[in-house]
């Protein structure tokens, strides 16, 4: 499938919800609404022409007014790679994709802990990287202040 065909497949299934965005290093990237992320991911994995079986990476970016979750998917059968983005408010809640790819389990734990959002229906919502008794807030947020943290001065 070409780049256009991949995008078309998603657009046909989820009409009006897919918005293409620029992204270097992947075949195609698009944004979806937070409510349909679980359906889009399931469609991406279970449709045989797409079959994105590898969740290569999953991460979050803080834009102060919102959080963006980025899924990097890859298909071993068809050698496509795409990126899916979804936006949610800080302190928001997004659907966990762990039922689709088990790999998301640890990634989601990491994101939830460092960015302070929640994943709905996550099987094991414990912190992962920070100490057990951590009370310093959500360190990956842009406005985080820590005792020993010195920000690079603005020019």
């Amino acid at each position, binding site marked *: 499938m070409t780049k256009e065909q991949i995008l078309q497949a998603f657009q046909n299934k989820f009409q009006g919800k897919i918005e293409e965005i620029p992204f270097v290093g992947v075949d195609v990237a698009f944004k979806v609404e937070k409510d349909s992320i679980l359906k889009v991911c399931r469609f991406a994995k279970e449709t045989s022409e797409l079959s994105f079986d590898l969740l*290569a990476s999953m991460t979050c970016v803080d834009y102060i007014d919102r959080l963006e979750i*980025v899924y990097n998917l890859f298909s071993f059968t068809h*050698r496509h790679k795409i990126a899916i983005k979804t936006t949610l408010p800080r302190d928001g809640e997004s659907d966990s994709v762990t039922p689709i790819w088990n790999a998301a389990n640890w990634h989601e734990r990491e994101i939830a802990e460092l960015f302070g959002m929640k994943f709905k229906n996550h099987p094991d919502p414990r912190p992962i990287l920070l100490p057990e008794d951590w009370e310093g807030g959500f360190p990956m947020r842009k406005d985080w202040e820590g005792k020993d943290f010195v920000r690079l001065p603005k020019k």
Partner: protein
Amino acid sequence: MSDYPKNKFPIDEFPTDETDGTDKNKPSNLFNLLGKDADTIAVTGGSEEFIVNMGPQHPSTHGVCRLLLRMDGEVIVDLVPIVGYLHRALEKIAENRTYLQFIPYTDRIDYVTAMICNHGFCMALEKLAGIQVPERAEYIRVIMDELNRIASHLIWLGTFALDLGAITPFLYCFREREKILDLFEMTCGQRMTFNYMRVGGVSRDLPEQFIPLAKEFVEYFKPRVDEYEYILTQNPIFLGRTKGVGILPQKTAIDYSVTGPNLRATGLKWDLRKEEPYSIYDRFEFDIPTGTNSDTWDRYMVRIQEMRQANRIVEQALNSIPEGEIKTKTPAVFKPPAGEVYVRVESTRGEMGFFIVSKGDTIPYRVKLRTASFSNLAVLPEMVRGWKIADLVVIFASLDVIMPDVDR
């Protein structure tokens, strides 16, 4: 020291029997991770099931990793890995440094394959800014990457054999690794954390003696792999400990995003250097070794053969390296255009990805480090159920997990 506040040392806070007067056998909350009935097991004591804590400091965890095991007699019922002891917040540091200042930090992601981490990060920036790398620099990068791959696999092989109780391979492996480190030291002054690659090339040219010495190493190394194989591959004790142990089905591996040699051992022929050639890997001839049974022995065999293939690539690159520039001229203040990029390279342990969000500034807005060990460790509980503790040590070692790579 007498006025040092009490409870300052973590050991003071460790739950003891005195913490609550009523239930002396109540385990700490952490043990409840292993299932709701973990309490009951410890209190009643009637069952054979019990909980074993392994780590954080344990010789076989190759770093600081804690494993909580629920045992039925000698058999592992369940396992929970507890990570994060080496979390250095590299992603946060990246947001507070310029792009070029972050290159030395990439060495520390996976200190055993620092060259490949350097390479991946520089490649992501080059892709974002559309910078071409000179031919000679690409060759140097490939030579360094592959030498580093051999060095990393040697560390793995040595410690893997050590975990099995064989001490000799460890000494042999470090003997060869020393020669590779000498080559690195000669080139960039460092033996482990190189900070060698730059956006648009490498920091300095190869010294004059490098190519003859590297060629000498390639010839020297070829029979050495046979030597390791002679000690291990058909050794009955080794076979007994590894053949059929810790099988990882291909479906589970993909589900957990396991990549690299662990995935190839399941029989899937997938190597980014071949299937999605970056740098100049498409110019070299090499094979992708794969396994069939996906057991510990296959993972061992894949890495052994990968060392031979890496050596082959180094040999070809050394024979065809052109003269010329080693670095494209880039402005002293590096500012990539605004945009987002995801670039992945084949690290020794699997797919190493760099996701960078740039706002057109000298400082990255966000850097995500996708490391192979993070996903490779997550699959461990699936592999050890039903095996014994002694097998856990072998299975864990065969995954080739590096803890700084997990915790970042």
